[in-house]
Structure formats: C-alpha cells, structure tokens
C-alpha cells in the first residue's frame, strides 16, 4: 500500500519536475517582454536533439551538453534578432503569434537537420532504479529535480539580487521608462531570449533520458509546461516549479487511484479551478494598473 503510494509519488515528482523545468523557461522571456514564447518547447527539443546528435558525432556528454546549450541559446538570440526585434512596434499578441510561427519553423528545420526518429540519452548515473520501500525511483529523476531547484534559485537570485535581473523586470514593467533611465532595452531582450533558450535546452538534455526526444517532442512539453506556468502564476519562477509539481502529482495520483483515462483531464481541471478562484495563479503577483 505504502509502496504503491510512494511509486505514484515518485512518478508524479518525476513528471512534475519535467513540466517545471519547461515552465521555468517561459518565465524569463515573459518577465522581460510579456510575450508567451510558444517556441519554448522547441528550445527544449533542440537541447535534447543537439546533444543526442553531437553524441553520435563522437562527443562525450560532458562536452556535447554545454555545446548544445550554447547552440540553442544562439538560436534563441537569432529568434529575437530575426523575428521579434523587426516587429518592435507590434502588440504582444502579434509577437506571440510570431513565436507560434517560429515554433513551426524550428520543428521543420529540426526534421531536416536531424531526422524523424525518436532518440534517447543514457541516464547520467545509469538506468538502474533506486528501490525505496518497494517503489522504484530513477536516478535521472533526482538529476531533474536537482537542476530544477538550482535553476529556480538561480532565477530567483537573478531577478532579485542582480542589477541585470532588475533591469529585465524594469523593461517588462515600463519599456519606455527603462529606456529613459539608460537601459539598453534591445540588449536586455536579446539576453532574455538567449537565456530562456539555454534554460529550455538544459531541461531538454536532463529529461531526454526519461521522456526520449524527437523533432516534435516540444509541442506537448510546451503545452504542459505552459499549463504549469499558468497554474503557478506566469512569470514567477517558484510558481512555475510549484505548478509543474502539482500537475505532475495530480496526473500520477489520478492514474494510480482513479483511472488512467482521467489523468490528463484532472491536470487541466485543477488549472481551471485555480484560475477561476485565483486568476493570477498560485504565486502570481496582483497586477495594479493605474488609470
């Protein structure tokens, strides 16, 4: 009984941590520009796929992974320079639509550059599960949870303790004012896209041993990560992690105790209920607009 519960818990935490890592990627770009970047899932996919293919080319994981993160960050920067920056004056909705286009484009490119097959990476510390009271936990889940924690703390410190992080927030709150006090808004946005892409790529590399990856793996991940981010309150790193874990746990417990047929429904039901009573999400800040 306890073993079963623990198993559902481990599964929920594993899946939840995956969602959380994806959700974290959304926060940076959103905080800088209020744009929900629908190409975030493609960054996750690019991180995983690039690492896999660099591995095929003979690079060890320790070299392939950082290189994949750098490449994905460059793709993120290019997305900003080539697609977002030229549409500077456009509304946020237009920019969001551009990111949807970019995600389709990136998927198509990945299909050509890589291939259409599924790929996997070996677990960082092997694929043998750790047995705790009859429940199996993959060591890779601990890697994902660990890096989620590091990333969220890093983001928290970045936004609250560094001038650059505060500059990002300032840009988001009032771009014109930020510009007037001498912030290089363009550079800040470029940085936030590159960093977001890097976080996405890191997530992609960490989760590939568990979820496997393919050129279209980003779509579903982005959807779940987006849901987690909304649940937690868009823009809050802690909220993103909380949201991810809640959705993951809800899915696992539903599949375990109710029926796997309701698994996805329950996750989205929680989101609906939370948004109904707390429209800003669990950890979102109330926005005050001066009229």
């Amino acid at each position, binding site marked *: 009984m306890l073993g*079963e519960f623990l*198993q*559902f818990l*481990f*599964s*929920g935490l*594993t*899946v939840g941590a*995956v969602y959380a890592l994806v959700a974290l990627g959304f926060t940076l770009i959103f905080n800088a520009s209020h744009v929900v970047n629908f190409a975030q899932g493609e960054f996750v996919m690019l991180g995983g796929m690039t690492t896999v293919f660099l591995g095929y080319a003979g690079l060890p994981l320790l070299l392939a992974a950082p290189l994949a993160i750098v490449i994905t960050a460059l793709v993120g920067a290019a997305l900003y320079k080539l697609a977002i920056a030229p549409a500077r004056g456009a509304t946020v909705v237009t920019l969001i639509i551009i990111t949807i286009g970019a995600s389709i484009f990136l998927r198509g490119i990945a299909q050509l550059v890589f291939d*259409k*097959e*599924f*790929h*996997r990476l070996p677990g960082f510390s092997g*694929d043998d*599960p750790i*047995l705790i009271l009859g429940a*199996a936990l*993959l060591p890779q889940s601990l890697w994902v949870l660990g890096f989620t924690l590091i990333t969220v703390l890093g983001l928290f410190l970045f936004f609250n303790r560094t001038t650059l992080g505060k500059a990002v927030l300032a840009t988001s709150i009032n771009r014109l004012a930020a510009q007037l006090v001498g912030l290089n808004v363009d550079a800040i946005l470029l940085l936030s896209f590159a960093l977001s892409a890097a976080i996405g790529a890191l997530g992609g590399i960490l*989760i590939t041993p*568990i*979820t*496997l990856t*393919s050129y*279209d*793996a980003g*779509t*579903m991940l982005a959807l779940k990560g987006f849901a987690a981010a909304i649940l937690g309150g868009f823009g809050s790193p802690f909220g993103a992690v909380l949201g991810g874990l809640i959705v993951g746990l809800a899915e*696992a*417990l539903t*599949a*375990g105790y109710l029926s*796997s*047929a309701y*698994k*996805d429904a329950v996750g989205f039901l929680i989101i609906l209920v939370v948004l109904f009573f707390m429209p800003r999400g669990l950890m979102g800040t109330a926005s005050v607009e001066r009229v």
Partner: protein
Amino acid sequence: MRQILKLLSLGALGAAIGATPSVAEIKIGSVVSATGPAAFLGDPERKTLELYVEKINVEGGVNGEPLELVIYDDEGDANKARTFASRLIDNDEVVAIVGGTTTGTTMAMAPLAEDAEIPFISMAGAVTIVEPVREFVFKTPPTDRMACEKIYGDMKARSITKIGMISGTDAFGSSMREQCRAVAGEHGIEILADEIYGPRDSDMTPQLTKIRGTSGLQAVLNPGFGQGPAIVTRNFKQLGIDLPLYQSHGVASKSFIELAGDAANGVRLPASPLLVPEQLPDSDPQKAVLVAYKETFEKETGQPVSTFGGHAYDGLMILVDALRRAGEADPVKIRDAIEATQGFVGTAGTVNMSPTDHMGLSLDAFRMLEIRDGGWVLAE
C-alpha cells in the same frame, strides 16, 4: 540559303520530336505520405514503388508495355490525399492506384476509386478498409485483429490465460486495444487489467504499478505506437515486474530496441518476417521474396529495410501480377484479376484473395519474434 538550311534542319528536328513513337504506357498512380508525421511509413513506400517500377521497365515492362508511375505526396493529410486521388483519376487517367499510407488517407480516397471504378490497393492497416468489402478496394498489410490473434495464440502455447493490457490512446493503440478486447473471449483470454496512456506521456509507472498490484496476471500486452511502448518497456523493467511482456507490430523496428535498451530483452511481438528473412527455414515460401526485396531495397536506398516498404512492394506486385493475367490495362478487368489473386507470395505472406476477402492473408503473415541481446529472434 543559310537561313533556309537552318529552317529546314529545325523542321526536321521538329518532325523527329513529333515522330517519337508513342509507346502505349500503362499509367498507374500513387498517393503516399512521403513527408509529414507519417513519413516513416510513406518514405520507404515511395522509394519502393519508384525503385520497382524502374526495375520492371528495365526488364521489359508488363505485357510488353512500360509502366508509368504518377506519384503524389499527401503529407499525411486526408484532404490532400482526396484531391490527389481525383487528380490521378480525372487528369492523369491512371488504370489503377497503389497508395494510401495511413488508414485516414485511404478512407478519404476509397470512395473516389469506387465511383470511378479504378482498382485501389491500400498499404494501410485498419480492418475497416476491407470490411465491409468494397468492390474496387484492396489492401496488403495484415490487420491489427490478426496481430491480437497471433499474440493470443502464442500466449495459449505458454498456458497464459489471464493478462493485463496497457494501451496508447493514439489511433493505432486504441484500434488495436478494441480488436484485442473483442477477440479475447474466443481465444480463452481474460483481460483483468486495462490501462491506457497518452501518446506523448513520459512516465507510465502509475499504470504499471496498478497492473503489478492486480493479482493473478500471467502476462502484459502493450498495443501502441511511437515512443510510448519503449517507455512502457523501460518502466516495466524498472518496476521489476516479472511477467512476459508482449508488444505489438507497431514497434517492429530497430529504433524500438535502441530506445528500450536492455529492458527490451525477452519482449515478444508479432511482426513481419521481413525483419528476420535469414532466420526463416529454406522451405519457407516467403524466404526468397523477402531476401530479394531486403537486398534490393538496402542496396539501392542505403537505408535499412522496413515492413512498410514491403507493403508497397506487395501492392505493386499484386497489381503487376493482375495486369499480366488481365492481359490488357482495363481498370475493371484489372480489378477482376486482383480479386482472383491466388497463391501470390509477397513480403507480408501468401495472398489468396476472394470476392469476400480483399486482403487475402492468413495468420502466418505475422511471425512471433522475441528480442534477445538487441536483435530479433524467431520464437516459433
């Protein structure tokens, strides 16, 4: 004078072009999903068709006439498939169609072929394509119901009667789940646990934990497609479930073994003998066909052979066989000849068509394979 000469030579050239003997060609059409989500099915199909039409023409064509293949890519989109099918029928005036990579695209094209009375051989799996029988529609791959029956046959041989199922909710998984549930009773199989997962789910341990907790199970069956079954297989091993695991023909490819890793050892699945042609006994009638197709495809394309390309090979060869027997390229006569196909040995099996059976395969289209040390082993 020069001008006149020039004109004259131009005229002669024109006459020469115009006089190119118009050899009667047998025009056959195809619509496959060579790109898009079903590309891994459609791509080897297209390559097979192009390769073998060329080969047949080099060898002198059919009934002394060369084949002309008109091929379109529907990108996995049923609407596009329908548009291309009507183009094949109305503009290209083909005498037969070999195509339809997925059940969706096939069902979109079938009514057009029926109306225009053009024989249409599909390469898609679902049993609904030939049940109920449509006069002009045939198919080459075996159905998922046959896969279920094959699996149950193997279970019976191992005295397994109580099983758990975990199925993907993708089109393939849910269709096979239904078929397997429908024929379980006839085969004395009792399904005690029935779990499902989404096609892009990344962890199936909750469902498998429930299955592990169900008492009396003797085996687990996983109908599914894509990466899901690989994750199920890995989770199965991680949870230490000590039961035989059966997969479906949906994962009969090398990539499944790579993705599932060591966990795949001992997994059984029904699959086309095309995966293990060299392991078949020499007495097997299919062996020669399978070995020849595998060698030709791998040599010409540089890619590993796939079952799906084999379905296209079967479709084309059944058509060529029918053309020879019909003696002329008349759609209705070709249809009658296809329906009369008897003892045709293809990559899927020995085909015996009849007015009530437009697929003509028996259970030996599937062989029970077991994965051992990262390779396929015939388990019969």
